[in-house]
């Protein structure tokens, strides 16, 4: 297992646990650690049980894990819920009024260290001290956050921190760190959704419409925060149907456009997807997955919408489906989505999920100064009379923008002639179908190569897509350490597929197991549909939690695919 530790902060919604989690994560990043945050929350604003787990270390960690080394329990329920997840030697930080249930650690007299309002900051102070974070580092982060609230608060926070420091040091407790932090250039702390928003901005996003829906709302909020500065129009629409049609209208008029939603909202966009394809209008759709059907588990994670995303919309048309595996991928893939949408003039979908959306990481700062952005529309000469849907071998006709020249731009949701007017000529129909589907060929040239992690021709090849990439790679690495030649094959593009990129690897492996966050093996059967390849087993998770290396190893062992491993 890669050297790392995990801190879990548990408490009720409304107890300020996100604040503590965010501050602690920030400080760990600033101190030079890598992190992987896993957030667990419920569909309520106060009460219930929430958690913020930070895995940290200095190696290449990128997967969520279960074992907890330091449990910061803001309420009794957190002690009870998470005691089973504690690693050997784990410590508990809890108020002295709580029952530690026999767990070792610190029973903190929070009431003495700070007023109730500042107990959170005191908790941060206690945890930070144990983690070897400098008091100044913590104080700086706290001030950035609360600074604006006036100096009284700042002073009180400062005091709470200092008290917590003093008290914690006085207990002489030590926590074993996972090696030394990195000393390298400062990293930024971002989650998947923020990275996606930044990638979109760098890719040329000009119009974002949305309707609030977990887990995608924060993409919109990130864009909105910078909308005025970056010259982006954002609009919360009346419903998701408006969302998608607004974006299509904006894109037609020349503003690169994106919508963000989750399963139920995406379902309402299916007709619009078909419209984007028929009118050949670029459109980026982000589908943040959560467990369904229907409202399902609205704050949890899953990978259940692959087949739906692949087939959503009536009629037949080309599309691309991208599935980032990390915040870094989110940035790059959001950019790629804009380029593909513009290049092929149609819908491009990005499938993320609640885990990745909310998972903060320490990331090398995105170097945006040199990155190109898309340009909507075609800038060259066109033949006269201009025809929006002029025949083109690759299906891509020059796209002028309305009002930017004297040429008229005519787009139609009906079957249409080259000049965009509705037709019932069945010969034209055949040509137009072929034109639109020709784009699939072009898209195939742009497919992102799946990443093979581990040796070719391994005994065991674990295949996965999207947000579970790191967990699968780590599971494979762990198996290699234990003597099995295992490898991971991770897809960040799931449609179209280019079997030439991966079929060799599948065939070379002795056994191929598909790891997916759904109950029916959607990617597995897509691969079979496209290549005829039969999997040799599978690991599936659909309880709403992210796939972890431990989950995979346990499932492989339980299925008799590997030796039992306890982790």
């Amino acid at each position, binding site marked *: 297992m890669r050297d790392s530790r995990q801190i879990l902060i548990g408490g009720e919604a409304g107890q300020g646990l996100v604040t503590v989690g965010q501050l602690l994560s920030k400080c760990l990043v600033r101190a030079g650690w890598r992190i992987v945050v896993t957030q667990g929350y419920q569909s309520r604003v106060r009460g219930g049980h929430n958690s913020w787990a930070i895995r940290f270390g200095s190696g290449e960690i990128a997967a969520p894990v279960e074992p907890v080394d330091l449990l910061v329990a803001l309420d009794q329920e957190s002690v009870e819920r998470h005691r089973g997840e504690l690693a050997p030697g784990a410590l508990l930080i809890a108020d002295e009024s709580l029952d530690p249930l026999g767990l070792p650690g610190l029973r903190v007299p929070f009431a003495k260290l700070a007023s109730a309002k500042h107990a959170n900051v005191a908790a941060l102070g206690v945890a930070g001290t144990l983690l070897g974070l400098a008091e100044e580092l913590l104080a700086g982060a706290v001030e950035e956050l609360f600074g604006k609230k006036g100096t009284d608060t700042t002073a009180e926070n400062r005091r709470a921190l200092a008290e917590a420091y003093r008290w914690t040091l006085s207990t002489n407790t030590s926590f074993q760190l996972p090696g030394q932090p990195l000393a390298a250039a400062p990293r930024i702390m971002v989650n998947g959704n923020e990275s996606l928003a930044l990638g979109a901005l760098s890719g040329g996003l000009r119009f974002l419409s949305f309707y609030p829906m977990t887990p995608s709302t924060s993409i919109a909020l990130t864009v909105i925060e910078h909308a005025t500065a970056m010259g982006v*129009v954002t609009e919360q629409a009346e*419903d998701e149907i408006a969302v998608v049609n607004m974006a299509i*209208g*904006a894109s037609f008029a*020349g503003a690169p456009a994106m919508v963000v939603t989750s399963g139920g909202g995406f379902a309402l966009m299916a007709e619009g997807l078909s419209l984007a394809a028929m009118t050949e209008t670029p459109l980026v759709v982000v589908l943040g997955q959560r467990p369904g059907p229907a409202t399902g588990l609205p704050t949890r994670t899953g990978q259940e919408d692959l087949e739906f995303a692949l087939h959503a919309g009536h009629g037949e048309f080309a599309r691309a489906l991208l599935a980032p595996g990390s915040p870094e991928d989110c940035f790059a893939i959001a950019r790629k989505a804009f380029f593909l949408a513009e290049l092929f003039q149609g819908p491009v979908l990005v499938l993320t999920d609640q885990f990745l959306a909310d998972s903060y990481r320490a990331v090398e*700062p995105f170097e945006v100064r040199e*990155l190109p952005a898309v340009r909507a529309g075609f800038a060259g000469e066109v033949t006269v009379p201009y025809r929006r849907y002029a025949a083109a071998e690759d299906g891509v006709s020059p796209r002028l923008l309305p009002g930017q020249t*004297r040429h008229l731009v005519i787009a*139609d949701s009906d079957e249409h002639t080259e000049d965009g007017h*509705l037709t019932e000529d069945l010969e034209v129909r055949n040509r137009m179908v072929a034109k639109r589907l020709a784009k699939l060929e072009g898209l195939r040239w742009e497919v992102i190569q799946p990443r093979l992690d581990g040796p070719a021709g391994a005994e065991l090849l674990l295949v996965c897509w999207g947000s579970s990439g790191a967990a699968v790679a780590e599971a494979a690495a762990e198996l290699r350490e234990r003597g099995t030649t295992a490898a991971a094959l991770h897809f960040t593009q799931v449609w179209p597929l280019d079997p030439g990129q991966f079929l060799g690897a599948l065939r070379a492996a002795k056994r191929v197991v598909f790891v997916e966050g759904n109950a029916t093996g959607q990617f597995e059967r897509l691969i079979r549909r496209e290549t005829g390849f039969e999997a040799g087993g599978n690991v599936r998770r659909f309880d709403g939690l992210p796939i972890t290396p431990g989950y995979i190893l346990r499932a492989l062992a339980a299925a008799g695919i590997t030796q039992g491993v306890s982790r």
Partner: protein
Amino acid sequence: MTTVADYGTYETAWCPGCGNHAILGAMKEALASSGLAPHQVLFISGIGQAAKAPHYLNANLFNGLHGRALPAATGAKLANPALKVIVESGDGCTYGEGGNHFLAAVRRNIGLTVIVHDNQVYGLTKGQASPTSDEGFVTKAQPEGVHAEPFNPVETAVALKANFVARGFSGMPEHLTGLIRQALAAPGFALIDVLQPCVSFNKVNTFAWYRQRVRELPAGHDPTDWAGALAVAVRWGEEIPIGVIYRGSRPAFEERVPALAAGPLIGREVDRERLAAIVDHLK
């Protein structure tokens, strides 16, 4: 100078005698006399008989989905407020399938000129009731007659304070041309609900029926008086007011969006320095 000829003449797929023909004519007149060149105009339409209208003149056109013209137009207008964006569609499209968008677009007061061919029926699908069908209207789909209270778009648009709310009649094309011209000139959301006889599927609300009932607003009507306008807007039945019923002065939505202060979104460069600063801020 733009002339009606610039907007062309095309064969239509409409029934002879249909009220749509005169609306098309009035639209071309109004566009030409407003001095708009075809390429400055973007039509957005839905699906239905009415929604075919913009195919029969020269202009930019996005012919989208049934019921969804308004959001598409909203997006286009926000991308490029320099375009004159005109929405043209039917009563079913705009107030039925698209009812929620109608409410939202009016509330936004987004700068669109919205011309609804209101024949009180679903024409293209061969004669089912629409939201504006009168109570008791009989069709094959409503053999006992419509039970619902009819939707009065003019009333709703006034209630939600669209900047310009008018009713026209296809049987009075010159009057209608005048209304469209005024609507084109009005900032913010401008609605003209046009009484449009469907000679094939609405045998009740015929040219004669409308002609008997329409009443031009008296000279004394003050469209800027909201309460007075609302009182006029609720009228329907034996007397149907036509003309400019309400004129408001709320700022148009697009004028309130900070990102548009610098002009249309088209062709702007990404401000990489600013973006770099944003990234930097995450350290």
